[in-house]
C-alpha cells in the first residue's frame, strides 16, 4: 500500500484531480456569490392563480402566504375554493403532476356570496371586522348589507354574527350564468325533457 502511494503515477493522479477539483471548486464558489438570487419571484405567479377567497382553508392566513408556501415546495392541492381548476393551473405553472384536492382542507363547493337578512341584523359591525375584503357596508347600530360583487364567500363573517342573520347563497344562478355543458363521449346526444305540459293543456 505504502509503496503504491509513492508510485509516481498515483501521485500524478492525485495532482491532476486536485488541480481540477481546486479550479472547479473555485469557479463554483465564485459563481455562488456572483450569481446569488434573493426572493422568489415565482410566488407572485402562484398567487395570481389562487382564487383569492382569502378563506384560510389552506391552513395559511390568506392566499399570498399559501402562494409563498407553495413556492417553498408545499403541496398544490390545499385550496378548496380554487378546486381542480386551480390545481391544474398550478401544476401547469410548476410542471408537476396535478394531485386531487386534499380533502382534509375541505371540498370544492359551488361559489357562494353572503346574504344578510337585513330585518334581523342588529348592526353589531362584528362581520365588518371579520371580512377580509371589506365587502360589508354599514355602521354601528345600522343594518348592514353585503356588496355581492365584492364578497368572496369565504364565510368568515358567519361565526362572528351574534344573531346568525348571515346566509351563504349560490352566486351563479339563473339563465345569465348558464352555458352548454361538454357532451359526454359516445353517449346519446340528447336528453329527453319530461313530457311537457303544453300538450297536457292542449289535450
Amino acid at each position, binding site marked *: 500500500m505504502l509503496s503504491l502511494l509513492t508510485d509516481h503515477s498515483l501521485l500524478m493522479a492525485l495532482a491532476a484531480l486536485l488541480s481540477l477539483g481546486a479550479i472547479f471548486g473555485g469557479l463554483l464558489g465564485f459563481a455562488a456569490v456572483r450569481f446569488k438570487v434573493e426572493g422568489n419571484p415565482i410566488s407572485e405567479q402562484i398567487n395570481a392563480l389562487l382564487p383569492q377567497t382569502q378563506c384560510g382553508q389552506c391552513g395559511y392566513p390568506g392566499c399570498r402566504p399559501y402562494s409563498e408556501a407553495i413556492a417553498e415546495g408545499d403541496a398544490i392541492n390545499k385550496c378548496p375554493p380554487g378546486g381542480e381548476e386551480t390545481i391544474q393551473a398550478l401544476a401547469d405553472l410548476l410542471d408537476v403532476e396535478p394531485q386531487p384536492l386534499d380533502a382534509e382542507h375541505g371540498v370544492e363547493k359551488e361559489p357562494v356570496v353572503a346574504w344578510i337578512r337585513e330585518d334581523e341584523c342588529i348592526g353589531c359591525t362584528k362581520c365588518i371586522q371579520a371580512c377580509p375584503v371589506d365587502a360589508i357596508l354599514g355602521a354601528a347600530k345600522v343594518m348592514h348589507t353585503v356588496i355581492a360583487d365584492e364578497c368572496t364567500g369565504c364565510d368568515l363573517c358567519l361565526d362572528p354574527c351574534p344573531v346568525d342573520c348571515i346566509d351563504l347563497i349560490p352566486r351563479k344562478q339563473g339563465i345569465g350564468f348558464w352555458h352548454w355543458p361538454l357532451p359526454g363521449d359516445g353517449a346519446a346526444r340528447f*336528453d329527453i*325533457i319530461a313530457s311537457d305540459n303544453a300538450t297536457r293543456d292542449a289535450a
Partner: protein
Amino acid sequence: MSLLRLTSPHATGQKQVSLVMQDVLLATLPGIAVMTWFFGPGTLVNLVLGGIVAIASEYLATALRGRNPSAALRDLSVLVTSTLLCIALPPYAPWWLIVIGVVTAVLLGKQVFGGLGYNPFNPAMVGYVVLLISFPVQMSSWAPPRGLEATPTLIETLSHVFAPATIDAMTAATPLDLLRQNTGLLFNDLLATRPEFSAWGGLGWFEVNFAFLSGGVWLLYRRIFTWHAPLGMLALLAVCSLIGYDGGSSQSGGSPIFHLFSGATMFAAFFIITDPVSSAVSNKGRLLFGALIGILVYLIRVLGNYPDAVAFAVLILNFCAPFIDHYTQPVVYGTRGKDR
C-alpha cells in the same frame, strides 16, 4: 309527446365514417385486380386471411376494454388497415407472417392508443415495418411477375401460404432491389438487360401503380381526401429523382418515371399517406407532410438499407405530424395581417 334538448346543427350531411372507409376499400379494387393478374392469387389469399385476423383482433381488443365491439367493427376502419397492409405484403408470404403483421398493426398500431382516430402512427405501416425488420427474408422475397414465370394456381398458392416450402423458389429481386444492387450498368442498360424491367420501369409494377393511381383519383373525385398530400409526395419524389438522375449513369438513382411508377409509390401516395388519422390536419400541413415523405422515400430508396422506403418515410413523418400541425395553422378570418 316528449321534447328533446340537443345542440345545433339539427341537420347533418350524408358523410359517415363507415361510408368513407367503404369508398377506400372500393378504390383499392383495381389495384388488387392488376396485382392478381401479374403476381397471381397470392394477394387475394393475403387479403382474405388478413381480413379475418383483423376482425378477430379488433373484436378481441374492444371486448377486452369493455367497449362495444360491433360498433367498432362497423366503421370498417380495421378492414381498411388490414387490406392496405396485405396489399403491401409480398404475395405467397407464409400465413404466420400475415397473422403477425395484422395483429401487430391492429393491436400495437391502433388499439393501444385507443382505437379509431387516436393512433399517431399509421397502423398498416407499423405492421409492415415490424415485419420488415423482423423477417427480412420473407419480406424481401417477391414473386416474379407474369412474363418472367407463370403465375401459380390457387392450389399452389394455398400450399405456399400454409405449408411454406423453401422461399427462393418463389422469389425474384424486385426492380428496386436491382437498382439498389446495381453497380456497373448504366440505368438504361439495366432496363434493357434485366427481364424484370419493361420500358417504363418494373415489369408489372408500372401497371400496378397505374391501377392504384386511378383508384386514388376516384377517391379525390369523391372528396375523401384533398390533393395536397399526394401531390406533395409525387412532386417532390419526381424532383428529387430528376436531380439525382444525371442522365442515368450507374450511380444514378433512377429516372423520375421509374420512381413514380415502381414499388409502392402510387399506392402510398393515395392510400397510405392520406390516412387522415396519422397525417397532418391542415391543408398546408398535409402538403408539407407529403413533400417530406417524397424526399425521404427517394433518399432511403437510393441511399438507405431498405429497397422500398415508403413505410419508413410514412412512420417518420407520422412522428413529425403533431409538430407540423403546430406550425401550419390556416389564417383565421379577420386575422389577416395580424400575427397570430
